[in-house]
């Protein structure tokens, strides 16, 4: 029983991490139907920016997380204005191939700039080691992930449901044409959403460095997870992504603990079943 609770705790922490990395992609895909595989490259970029800031510039951990967020958001604006926006009207496959090309380029560029080796990070001492809670031995860093991820989710949901900007985003996801017709600057909304989503991807990547290992092949390892979260959750749905991320996180940790010989099989099977049962995702609307 205790181990099950520990697994649940670890799985949820992992799931929230995936959520932070994937949510931006979900919203932009729901809004523009733009398939951006290079989203995961921004997570890697975030990780490297954080490690670089801490090692080379001596920036404290929490500040470097914010730095990762800012750097990725800024970089994504550049990317969107220069490259991606020319391909909004293109078909799915063109977008997949274009962003796959960008992903390959990002891997090689990161290897060139920061070297191909694995990058460790030293988190502050208050985040290392374990603590006990009701007889359970839990890792402090995972608790940090859980708290930070939970707070981010609350902020996101509040922004989307309660602010003017959130209403615009929801309107654009529902129908870009109708939103545009009622006077919303959809391009502007999209650009801002894209930047925020990319910033979150970077933040998620930075938070993941201590848990997942960071090297130039990071995008190839985690691209599939992010895609799974987005498609299982349903494009454009934040709650869907949250649900899917937690489900995948817990299923992955559970599967690896109880059935290690099956490895990643568990989540792929889950994905295939969900997609066959509900092609639009758990919380997605039918096309």
């Amino acid at each position, binding site marked *: 029983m205790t181990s099950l609770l520990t697994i649940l705790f670890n799985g949820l922490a992992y799931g929230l991490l995936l959520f932070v990395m994937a949510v931006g992609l979900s919203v932009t895909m729901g809004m523009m139907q733009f398939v951006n595989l290079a989203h995961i490259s921004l997570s890697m970029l975030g990780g490297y920016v954080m490690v670089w800031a801490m090692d080379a510039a001596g920036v404290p951990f929490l500040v470097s997380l914010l730095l990762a967020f800012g750097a990725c958001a800024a970089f994504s604006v550049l990317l969107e204005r220069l490259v991606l926006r020319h391909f909004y009207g293109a078909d799915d496959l063109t977008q997949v191939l274009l962003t796959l090309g*960008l992903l*390959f*380029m990002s891997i090689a560029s990161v290897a060139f700039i920061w070297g191909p080796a694995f990058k460790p990070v030293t988190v502050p001492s208050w985040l290392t080691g374990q603590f006990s809670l009701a007889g359970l031995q839990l890792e402090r860093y995972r608790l940090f992930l859980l708290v930070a991820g939970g707070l981010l989710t609350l902020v996101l949901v509040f922004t989307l449901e309660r602010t003017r900007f959130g209403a615009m985003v929801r309107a654009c996801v529902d129908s870009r044409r109708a939103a545009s017709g009622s006077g919303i600057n959809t391009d502007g909304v999209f650009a801002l959403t894209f930047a925020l989503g990319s910033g979150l991807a970077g933040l998620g990547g930075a938070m993941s460095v201590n848990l997942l290992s960071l090297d130039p092949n990071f995008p190839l390892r985690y691209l599939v997870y992010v895609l799974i979260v987005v498609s299982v959750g349903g494009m454009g749905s934040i709650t869907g992504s949250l649900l899917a991320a937690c489900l995948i996180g817990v299923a992955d940790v559970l599967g690896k603990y109880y059935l290690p*010989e099956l490895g990643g099989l568990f989540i792929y099977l889950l*994905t295939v079943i969900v997609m066959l049962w509900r092609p639009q995702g758990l919380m997605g609307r039918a096309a």
Partner: protein
Amino acid sequence: MARMQISDYFAHQSRWGGWEYAFWLLWIVLFFVPDSNLVLLTQILIWGLFAMSLDVLLGYRGIPSLGHAAFFGIGAYSAGFLGKYGWTEPISGLLISALITGCAGLGMGRVVRGLHGVALLMVTLGLNMILFDFVQRSTDITGGDDGLQDIVIAPVLGMFRFDMYGKTAYVYVLVVVFIVTLLVRALVNSPFGLTLRGSRESTRRMIMLGAPVDRDVTLAFGVSAAIAGIAGALLAQTTQFVAPEMVAFTRSADVLVMLVIGGTAVLYGGYVGAAVFLVLRDVFAAMNPVYWYFWIGLLLVVIVALFRQGILPKLAEKWTRFREGR
């Protein structure tokens, strides 16, 4: 203008063009060129065949698959197991592998035929990942990361032993690739092929014309998978080694890239794409073994941005314009 008879239409469609002769002649000439890199050329043929198998699905039917390496891998492992456990005759081994992979393809087609867009991509990708995981983890059956070793392949037709220089391998692969390409050529120019293209353009209209659209998707998956299986089996037989990497998702992505570089729905696009991709990879990797992916990525971006329809259709278009201009 007189109305074309239907039989005339199909005859016209399947007439051989001069450059097709040139294409196959080139492969024969390359064999006799001294010091030609036969290993690389064999790789190009195998990858080209693999890309053509995806073309049946993507180019002619308009269904993308992110999991085509699954079929390549099933074919490779089938041929590998046959060779390892005593069935060493290569040609029958190839046919058995094609049959097994074809059945897997029919099954997959039956499962995914109702899906579109992202869901379709995710299910094909997911099934690919499941297979990869299974292959990598079942170390007692597949040898895991060490790969399947001790594969014995008898001489082709009892006469031609697979030699160190890859001469037998090259000729064997070229002949198989030629025959399969002829079959695919006949298939895509047949009424069935026309139906596939029709469904690609407008599924709804084809349903109204009474075409069994769903059944055709299943069949297209089966055919495409069988060809991919032959490509995988060829690789297993000529290298006498099978590794889980043959099933990996990156292979699915690579083959998609090759096909798009070369051009979809033009039959030879896959070969051109495979040649460009593999030669460039060789060149870039020789320049720098770590960063060559950057150039492949850049190539992909440029191709997608500038000539989305691929190299071969672009050249064909230029050629037609040139001839009309005269």
